[in-house]
């Protein structure tokens, strides 16, 4: 229903949403652990069966087992480790409720968690070299990118076209492990893999074909609940540890 409303208000098309899946598939093609490793086209997304209008099967994430873990240590400890560490530059969290029934299906909690993270990190969307965006569905990515300020509200459809999200040379490479749309989506834990891939990018340890050159600042974003209705959003901005 979020996608349907976004299309109604802003003229977003299914072909534009499909561009998000296409970019994810181009990245998953280089990930030997991805569940779906085949590159797909916009036409293939549009010709896959409708699950819930206007979302097709290929607009939806996979359902898999999986897991992940992060080590969070103090700066003192980090400096004693042999592995390259990354620094948390800023973070933000937001809960969006149903607003006494006046729900707005085109705006997510990222509209609050994003600005808080950018302010704390002292950077702007233009400074971000790579993004991990939670991707339960293609529309989840599109609304999140708008709300984080990578483009104006309503311009997401145009923004994701023309290879913007494709690594390594798109304007804003995203989900270079293939994301939830192609790689994995362990139950309700889709956010963990987002942070892990952002760390890989900053360490220069992503799959070679999708490693963003000189990746210095990355953003990871998680989404929970019912998109744009009753939901939680969390944004973290990570950077190479220069301290």
């Amino acid at each position: 229903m979020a996608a349907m409303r976004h299309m109604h208000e802003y003229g977003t098309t299914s072909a534009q949403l499909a561009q998000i899946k296409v970019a994810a598939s181009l990245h998953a093609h280089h990930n030997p652990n991805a569940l779906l490793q085949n590159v797909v086209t916009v036409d293939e997304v549009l010709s896959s069966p409708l699950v819930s209008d206007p979302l097709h099967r290929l607009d939806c994430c996979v359902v898999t087992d999986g897991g992940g873990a992060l080590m969070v240590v103090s700066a003192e400890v980090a400096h004693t480790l042999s592995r390259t560490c990354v620094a948390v530059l800023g973070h933000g969290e937001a809960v969006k409720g149903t607003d006494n029934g006046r729900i707005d299906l085109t705006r997510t909690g990222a509209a609050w968690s994003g600005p808080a993270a950018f302010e704390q990190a002292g950077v702007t969307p233009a400074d971000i070299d790579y993004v991990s965006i939670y991707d339960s569905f293609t529309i989840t990515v599109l609304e999140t990118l708008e709300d984080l300020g990578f483009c104006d509200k309503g311009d997401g459809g145009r923004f994701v076209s023309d290879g913007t999200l494709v690594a390594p040379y798109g304007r804003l490479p995203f989900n270079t492990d293939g994301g939830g749309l192609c790689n994995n989506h362990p139950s309700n834990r889709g956010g963990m893999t987002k942070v892990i891939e952002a760390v890989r990018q900053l360490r220069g340890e992503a799959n070679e074909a999708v490693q963003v050159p000189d990746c210095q600042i990355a953003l990871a974003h998680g989404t929970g609940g019912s998109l744009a209705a009753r939901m939680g959003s969390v944004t973290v901005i990570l950077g190479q540890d220069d301290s």
Partner: protein
Amino acid sequence: VISLPAPPPPRDDGDEEFWTATTEGRLLLRRCDACGTVIWYPRPICPSCHSTDTSWTDASGMGTVYSFTVVRRGVGRFATAVPYVFAYVELAEGPRVMTNVVDCDPETVYIGMPVELVFHDTGERSALYRFRPTSVGQQLP
């Protein structure tokens, strides 16, 4: 037209009046007597001004489709009811409520479509509030 299942809603303390009204063909809205806000979901404290001075009022039953989807893959009792329309309807009083649009071809539903309230009895002292295009009602004798 395939009829949708009408499973009984979970019940809780304090919701007896609301669900009993649905069996009488009425959708109750909570209204704040202090600031006038129409409250949804129903609750005794106004989320706008925090007043406890609230009371029930009958919804007019009129609304428009705010957004919707045609569900093509259902689960449980709804698996065999596809395709059906799942929607948010904006009530004339303001709130947008999660519901179904029924009694029409799912392919004809659109955002902004005028709809009116209907009730589907669950058989367990409650009825589900759903909506049909107002044009359906106008065709009936």
